[in-house]
């Protein structure tokens, strides 16, 4: 019997708990107590954490939270308990290297260290952003063609053949298969057919995921999402996705979208919950690697001070205590053809790279609109490479990120956000290059960031 069946068994037989009690009495109250026990706090002017003791304490606190709580099955309303030894075995067994894709286009992900001299891998795409079919292929090709890009992902098809896609409906199967066909077509057309990808983004339920577990769609060397639900929860839909990888063998990307300001409270509690999610995901999601995507409860974006700190401290906590592959999402508030999109991207890319993460993005305009392009993905990669080329320290990174925050933080007070424009207004659709105004903005911001101190950019 595969060990996962034991987890399924526990989901069916564990202690009963209402979801409200799980959220409030278990997650919120236990996290609050543990944060006090470990005296965890954060400083909004230290958005790139620079204290190893804090990173270690966040890790220990997260481990304690998992030991005390376990996971919760939303389907069965039961608690899935784990022994300490099982959690440690999960930490030990998680891959330190993972090859994605095939042939000359393959790339190897690796667990990064704090201020690692090696560059982060550049995983380009706007994961999950709703995308109309007419824009899908040109959008993904806009980042597939960028030489700095190592791996790719995509948005979700919001309509297919002019018909809206519904989750859990036969249209989800059509959309997910169509998405994978476009991804294959795009990679072939830019001459990189073997490039690895995170696919099946159009599959919210298990239906689409099941429908593409085939070498013609999602290869064994590609990845799919197996999310943990907020907070520390699984359900049978997502457990089905984990099971779908058994025997077939595609890479499992665990995804924790911890809500910063949510059940964990302020940033330190949310970092603790994020650590706990990853430790659990080694077992519940059969994680090959982890995607770190804290969401700001008020502003959504990953570029807020709180989220920058949470991402950084979680990456550092694992780099020091339980090395594993962490790919961190960049979801800026702003969209294409805005300078702020580039400032936000730079801030996130700097903080992630020095703290031990790989880069994935950009989910421009909060990932809510098809307002992302290959240009900001290029910029994300260039910034990440510059950080390692320059051997930026945590302190230097913090100074730079604070300077960038000055340039975009005002956006968070705007009720309408800063969505920019759709892809087809930012790119020449024939040549698939940025329109001159967007290209010029990129050149100017790049020079500005260089001036701010990232000289290697």
């Amino acid at each position, binding site marked *: 019997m595969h060990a996962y069946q034991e987890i399924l068994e526990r989901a069916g037989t564990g202690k009963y708990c209402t*979801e409200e009690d799980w*959220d*409030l009495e278990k997650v*919120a*109250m236990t996290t*609050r107590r543990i944060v006090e026990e470990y005296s965890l706090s954060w400083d909004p002017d230290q958005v790139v954490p620079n204290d190893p003791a804090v990173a270690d304490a966040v890790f220990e606190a997260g481990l304690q939270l998992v030991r005390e709580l376990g996971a919760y099955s*939303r389907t069965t309303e039961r608690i899935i308990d784990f022994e300490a030894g099982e959690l440690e075995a999960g930490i030990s067994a998680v891959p330190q290297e993972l090859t994605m894709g095939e042939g000359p286009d393959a790339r190897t992900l690796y667990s990064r260290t704090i201020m690692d001299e090696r560059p982060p891998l550049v995983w380009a795409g706007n994961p999950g952003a*709703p995308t109309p079919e007419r824009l899908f292929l040109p959008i993904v090709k806009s980042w597939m063609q960028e030489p700095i890009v190592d791996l790719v992902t995509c948005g*979700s098809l*919001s309509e297919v053949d002019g018909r*809206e*896609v*519904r*989750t*859990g*409906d036969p249209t*989800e199967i059509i*959309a997910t298969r169509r998405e994978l066909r476009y991804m294959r077509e795009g990679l072939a057309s830019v001459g990189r057919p073997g490039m690895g990808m995170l696919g099946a983004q*159009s599959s*919210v*339920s298990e239906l689409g995921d099941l429908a593409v577990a085939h070498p013609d769609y999602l290869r064994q060397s590609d990845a799919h999402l197996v999310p943990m*639900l*907020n907070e520390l929860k699984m*359900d049978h*839909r997502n457990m089905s996705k984990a099971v779908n990888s058994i025997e077939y063998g595609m890479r499992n990307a665990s995804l924790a979208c911890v*809500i910063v*300001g*949510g*059940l964990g*409270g*302020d940033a330190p509690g949310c970092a603790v919950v994020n650590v706990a999610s990853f430790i659990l995901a080694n077992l519940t999601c059969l994680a090959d690697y982890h995607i770190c995507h804290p969401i700001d*409860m*008020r502003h*959504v974006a990953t570029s807020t001070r709180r989220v920058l700190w949470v991402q950084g401290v979680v990456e550092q906590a694992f780099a020091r205590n339980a090395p594993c592959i962490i790919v961190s999402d960049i979801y800026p508030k702003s969209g294409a053809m805005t300078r702020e999109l580039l400032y936000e991207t730079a801030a996130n890319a700097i903080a992630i790279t020095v703290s031990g993460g790989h880069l994935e993005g950009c989910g421009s305009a*909060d990932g*809510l609109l098809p307002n992302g392009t290959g240009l900001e993905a290029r910029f994300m990669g260039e910034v990440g490479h510059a950080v390692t080329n320059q051997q930026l320290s945590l302190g230097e990174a913090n100074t730079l990120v604070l300077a960038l925050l000055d340039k975009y933080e005002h956006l968070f007070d705007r*009720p309408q956000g800063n969505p920019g424009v759709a892809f087809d207004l930012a790119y020449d659709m024939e040549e698939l290059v940025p329109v001159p105004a967007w290209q010029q903005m990129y050149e100017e911001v790049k020079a500005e960031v260089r001036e701010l101190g990232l000289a290697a950019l």
Partner: protein
Amino acid sequence: MSEAAGLLGRIRKAIVEGASTDAEQLTQEAVAAGVDALDILNDALMSGADEVGAKFESGEYFLPELMLTGRALKAAMAVVSPILEQRTDRSTEDTGKAVIATVKSDIHDIGKNMVASLLTASGFEVTDLGVDVPIKEIIAKAQELDADVIGCSALLTTSMPFLRDLIDLLDAMGERDRFIVMVGGASVTPEYAVHIKADGTAPNAMDAVKEARRLIRAKRENGGNR
């Protein structure tokens, strides 16, 4: 300070601190001491809830504090509601019964939980059906409870069609005018709400409560018609 004022202050403090047991016991004590139930509602419960809302808006409080206050208010309201119901003229009220859910196929609930907590904190009687709820079940519960408001959330673009299905089904059942339908979620815009003929939407939980109150007032002033 009079005994009544002292009790109201302590109830208010319990609400702000989210202390459920204290809120319930102190409210019972206040009722037994002859404090007017309407004073308890306005000067302790709503006033405390307003402070919590302001702290949440300013970033001082987070979701757990909001949920604890919601729970404390529910406990205190269970004491004063029966008294208030005997004397309340509903035509001037701007709260009521709300059935709230994340629609079928969507399992995101943080936004929905915030709205539910704030509605409760504002004096609404909230029935939260949870996530991934079939639209027929939402309508059946609203009918059973004779709800004033149906509040539906969909975070995913691919779940939003179920919001429209709910309104279409109410129409087909001849029940559309009976309920105020509010929709919300990260991808739901005011334009989309108008497009599917919802009665209202809001960009955040605080505004959702204001919008629900406004819609209820308008409906009651209009003799029960939307």
